């Protein structure tokens, strides 16, 4: 899953310090595998180099990096297109999609619309595989079936997530 895009997404809420980003990242997006602080700062450095964030003046006080980072229009556009783009079905789908849904809810974006597009993209793939299965020899048909069952499992999870968006949104808003 993409740490840079996730941090960028978190910055789309409001300008933040690295340690705020790390805290929110650890709270929402990883369970039991905190992001090393060094990775936060190196990622922010790269995002700044690429013009996706800007670093504010160093604030007085102690700590490794007291600077506040803000997203740029370039960064914001990148977050938007990333969120809106359906994810390919692979073993990482649920991780990536989960991050996107939570971020979309945090940013007040159309999480339901993103899920709809994801499910449409999955169904399109399922249609292609159904056609393929029906015109293939038994071996290829079995392989197509395997893919179909995986896509179906993804879709069930997508539907369940869509059904739980309201309670998820409450949770995200409450913190």
């Amino acid at each position, binding site marked *: 899953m993409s740490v840079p895009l996730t941090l960028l997404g978190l910055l789309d809420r409001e300008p933040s310090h690295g340690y705020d980003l790390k805290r929110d990242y650890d709270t929402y997006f990883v369970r039991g595998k905190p992001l090393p602080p060094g990775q936060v700062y190196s990622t922010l450095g790269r995002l700044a180099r690429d013009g996706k964030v800007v670093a504010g003046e160093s604030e007085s006080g102690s700590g490794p990096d007291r600077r506040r980072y803000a997203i740029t229009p370039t960064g914001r556009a990148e977050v938007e297109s990333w969120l809106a783009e359906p994810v390919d079905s692979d073993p990482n789908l649920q991780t990536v999609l989960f991050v996107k849904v939570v971020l979309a809810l945090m940013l007040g974006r159309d999480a339901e619309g993103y899920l*709809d597009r994801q*499910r*449409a993209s*999955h*169904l399109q793939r*399922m249609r292609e*595989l159904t056609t393929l299965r029906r015109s293939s020899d038994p071996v290829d048909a079995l392989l197509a079936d395997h893919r179909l069952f995986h896509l*179906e499992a993804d879709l*069930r999870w997508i539907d369940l997530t869509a*059904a739980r968006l309201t309670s998820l949104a409450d949770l995200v808003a409450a913190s």
Partner: protein
Amino acid sequence: MSAADLPAVPTAKGPLLRARDLHRSFGSTPALRGAELSVDAGEIVAVMGPSGSGKSTLLHCLAGIFPPDRGEVWFDGGRLDRLSESRRTELRRTSFGFVFQFGQLVPELTVADNIALPLLFNRDDRKDAYRRADEWLTRLELDGLGGRRTGELSGGQAQRVAIARALVIHPRVLFADEPTGSLDSLTGERAMDLLTDLARAEGTTVVLVTHDARVAAYADREVMVRDGLVTSPYPVEGGR
């Protein structure tokens, strides 16, 4: 009655079936709240969505089983919702086929009787009706079962009889509501293979209600029903 007897509208071309701003409540429960759907001739459209979202109600309104409280249903250029109940019944008998999850066959009658029944209702010649029923037995891989009572069939066989019975009149539209809902994956798959192959061969338009994505994947496209509204991930001509 044929579709040509319906009140004509100026636009000859356009969708075969169209729902506009459909509203329908049951007591204080709103089942449809402004549903829109447009289906072209020959298209197979899957209607998906959570339980209780209004899929079956939408299908029933489209098929003229009951009229909407408000809104319009257009079929082949005419207002279906404006027809009298008896003309709607006649239209269903001559132009629509139905496959539901359960309970559509007459268990005391034989397979051949069940398939011939819609033709006999339409006052077709008896011998001809049974000859045609026989053809459909073959098309649905039910050879040799014509004399069986449908109460004695497996679920998969019964569903194929139901498909034959729905298609025997050469309907313009086939309405299917969870046609594989009571079947296992393999049996459901075979039923869907046959249903879609035959519908495509006959040029029959299909409205397929299902919450099974594997079944929906047989369709040309899908729409989602949520809280009595139809949403589509694709741009719909003329807007939602």
